């Protein structure tokens, strides 16, 4: 089995988000970057499947060199090699074009990634890549099992879940509880240093969208505290003051 796992490099979930350069750039100062939490689930399941079936597991990231520590971490967790497309990821479409290009040259059985990256929250890259490769894509996938060439997927749908069977190859957007996050062990960290991380130049394309500026939400007003002894008044306030009931 040939598996590709696409990872994003995103601010830690607790990071305070601010912008610089006239609100046109993310202020990376003091921000810790991590593998996207959903991508981490995809990676964990990818590693398990490789252990089960053999084959190869490649991680792919579209982005600049500051992501290399996160890519090394993915190698330490169990990927065999890595590809970094050396380009600023301009938008979902651009990223998907780069991923699809690599996929076309390597014919993977399974392309896994998170259901969305937690920076732009778009959740469209798996669908775009699937269409560009002309293969099915499913998301968000909570369970993934393979028997022969048949894949059984449980995916979340509005208010429930759907179980389906599909043939390989597939593109899947993953979320918990598909696997438990894996923490690299010492041996993994040592071997990751010598695993190949291939830096590839992007295919050139003009982005279809262009970011203009960023903004922070208006600060929240103070919380109105209601004494526990008068809890019932909450209902009236919600109805007459907040007008949400």
């Amino acid at each position: 089995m040939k598996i590709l796992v696409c990872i994003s490099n995103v601010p830690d979930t607790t990071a305070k988000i601010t912008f610089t350069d006239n609100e046109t750039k993310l202020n990376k100062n003091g921000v810790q970057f991590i593998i996207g939490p959903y991508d981490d689930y995809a990676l964990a399941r990818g590693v398990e499947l490789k252990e089960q079936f053999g084959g190869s597991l490649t991680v792919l990231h579209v982005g600049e060199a500051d992501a290399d520590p996160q890519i090394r971490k993915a190698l330490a967790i169990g990927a065999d090699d890595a590809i970094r497309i050396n380009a600023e990821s301009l938008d979902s479409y651009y990223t998907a074009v780069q991923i699809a290009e690599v996929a076309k040259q390597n014919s993977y059985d399974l392309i896994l990634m998170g259901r969305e990256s937690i920076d732009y929250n778009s959740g469209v890259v798996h669908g775009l890549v699937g269409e560009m490769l002309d293969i099915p894509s499913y998301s968000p996938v909570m369970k993934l099992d393979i028997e022969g060439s048949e894949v059984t997927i449980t995916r979340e749908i509005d208010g429930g879940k759907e179980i389906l069977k599909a043939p390989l190859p597939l593109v899947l957007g993953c979320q918990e509880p598909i696997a438990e996050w894996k923490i690299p062990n010492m041996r993994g960290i040592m071997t990751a240093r010598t695993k190949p991380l291939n830096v590839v130049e992007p295919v050139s394309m003009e982005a279809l969208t262009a970011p203009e500026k960023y903004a922070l939400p208006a600060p929240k007003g103070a919380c109105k505290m209601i004494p526990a002894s008068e809890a019932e008044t909450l209902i009236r306030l919600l109805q007459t003051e907040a007008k949400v009931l």
Partner: protein
Amino acid sequence: MSVLIYAELDNGSIKKTSLETIAYGVKVAAATGDHAVVLAIGSAEKRELEKAGHYGASKVLHASEEKLKHENSLAYADTLVQAAQQEGSKVIILSKSGLGDAVAARAAAKMKAGIVSGVTALPEIGETFKVTRSIFTGKAFAVTEIKSDIKILVVRKNAIELDESSVATVQAVVEQFAPKLADEAFKATVVNVEKASSELSLTEAAVIVSGGRGMKGPEHWQPLIDFAKALGAATGCSKPVSDLDWRPHHEHIGQTGIKVAPNLYIACGISGAIQHLAGVNGSKCIVVINKDPEAPFFKAADYGIVGDVFEILPRLTEAAKTLK
């Protein structure tokens, strides 16, 4: 030309979030001087689809083939693209959901269309076409220009104020739409669909009552469920609660769960970790009930009660029953 809006169906009628998306699309069409056409895929009664007219759409294309019964982003995207070609649509609008994103993505790749997901307001249309979207899980916004000829917007809940009182009683014209569908789109077989159909879906709910580890265990959920019932609310939970299997996974709200944007979110025994807040910061009003006055959730709340959920919830339920 037209603005094409994809409306999701549930149980034969247009989902509430999609009605909002239709109203959004109608406003975009008014700004671009086009008319708004709705595409509905799956089975539905004609009179349910006609309701799109109440929100300003003139026409509904209905693709109702049996094959399209199950959510199938491949076939749905095919259908959407063919509808867009028939109607000469330059702007295509969908609701933010797993299905909406999937259909939008595949359609974008087919049409080389710029796609922006998570749009939170009406576009600014002039020399350029700019949209505002939510990024960093609600911690910030981005203004993005879409430069391609065909533009695809995936719109979040509450992107516009939907004033139900201004809803007209005009019916939309419903036309059958029969797309050409490739066999490749039907390679997967649906084995089973588990839908808690009696429950209100979290993404659709106007009010959500949500419980955290402070609820102590699954056997203690009844007071929360009773309160939710009294308010006609959906129930949600924090991640540890679903991790511990106290509540089903589809109730898990937050950064790694469902993102909700109800009018009212009531958090019971949830501390307010940043990853939980990330899933609820689109809510109009937040109420926090927690016995710890230092719980971080109070900083993100509009109303707060410091107290024991098991003492407070039954009293709120009684008070809620006297509503209306």
